[in-house]
């Protein structure tokens, strides 16, 4: 397979284009995973701006019209709206899990049913978040169930 790497200036946005016969091939998935792990989002905390890798994010949540990015143990405020997060996360392991949240499927330890007809996802840092039944199909598709 031919591999081309082109060095570009700092002012240009980094981009990866895959030309392949089968978009569902294992190696394409691996490239996609690696690329999405490099994708970043900006978050503020105590007046300091941080650049966070999407792969570090546990979930994004919108509370009272304010957006937050939650990582292992920290919370950052972000400027993006939920639909912008969703668009940013296309092709990554993050998916819309409820009306106000985008969750990283990679960080889910396990899920359990809730009496309220929804699911409770227990994350690897011990946090519990709600997954609406409406979005469970997306999680199943993402995991390959």
């Amino acid at each position, binding site marked *: 397979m031919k591999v081309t790497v082109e060095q570009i200036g700092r002012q240009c946005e980094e981009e990866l284009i895959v030309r392949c016969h089968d978009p569902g091939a294992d190696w394409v998935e691996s490239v996609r995973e690696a690329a999405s792990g490099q994708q970043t989002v900006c978050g503020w905390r105590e007046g300091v701006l941080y650049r966070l890798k999407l792969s570090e994010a546990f979930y994004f949540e919108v509370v009272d019209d304010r957006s937050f990015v939650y990582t292992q143990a920290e919370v950052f405020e972000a400027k993006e709206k939920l639909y912008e997060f969703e668009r940013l996360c296309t092709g990554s392991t993050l998916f819309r899990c409820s009306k106000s949240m985008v969750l990283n499927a990679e960080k889910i330890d396990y899920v*359990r049913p809730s*009496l309220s007809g929804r699911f409770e996802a227990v994350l690897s840092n011990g946090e519990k978040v709600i997954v609406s039944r409406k979005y469970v199909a997306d999680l199943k598709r993402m995991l390959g169930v």
Partner: protein
Amino acid sequence: MTIYGIIMLCTFFMCLLFNPASELPVVTFFGRIMVFTLIALLSLAVYYSKEELTVKAWWVRTVLHLLLLEAVLLPLAHYWGFWQSGTDILIYAGFILLAEALWHLVDYSINAKTAAQINERIRKNRLEKKTGKE
């Protein structure tokens, strides 16, 4: 479908217990069950919310849903002769409560099955990653 089945079961047991000799044309019977189901489905609007419901809000709405069902279905069932008087109304109200509980139970067991599938996949993916790294 679940609601329709539950209502059919409840109606069957109500007739079996209180009026086993009753006769009802098939079309009338199924038609009434369909009306009950439609009401039950429309009453689900109480769960509508722009925001994600908290557990507390969900319980409040579930109680409201039950009260709404009792308030609409009891008079209608009386009009159609499903219950006559006295203790009948308590038993019929109990059936509605039981139907609501059964519906949530069926819902919960379907979700439990889905959760088990997801957890199994998460476990496999984790194992594949682990063995892939080694």
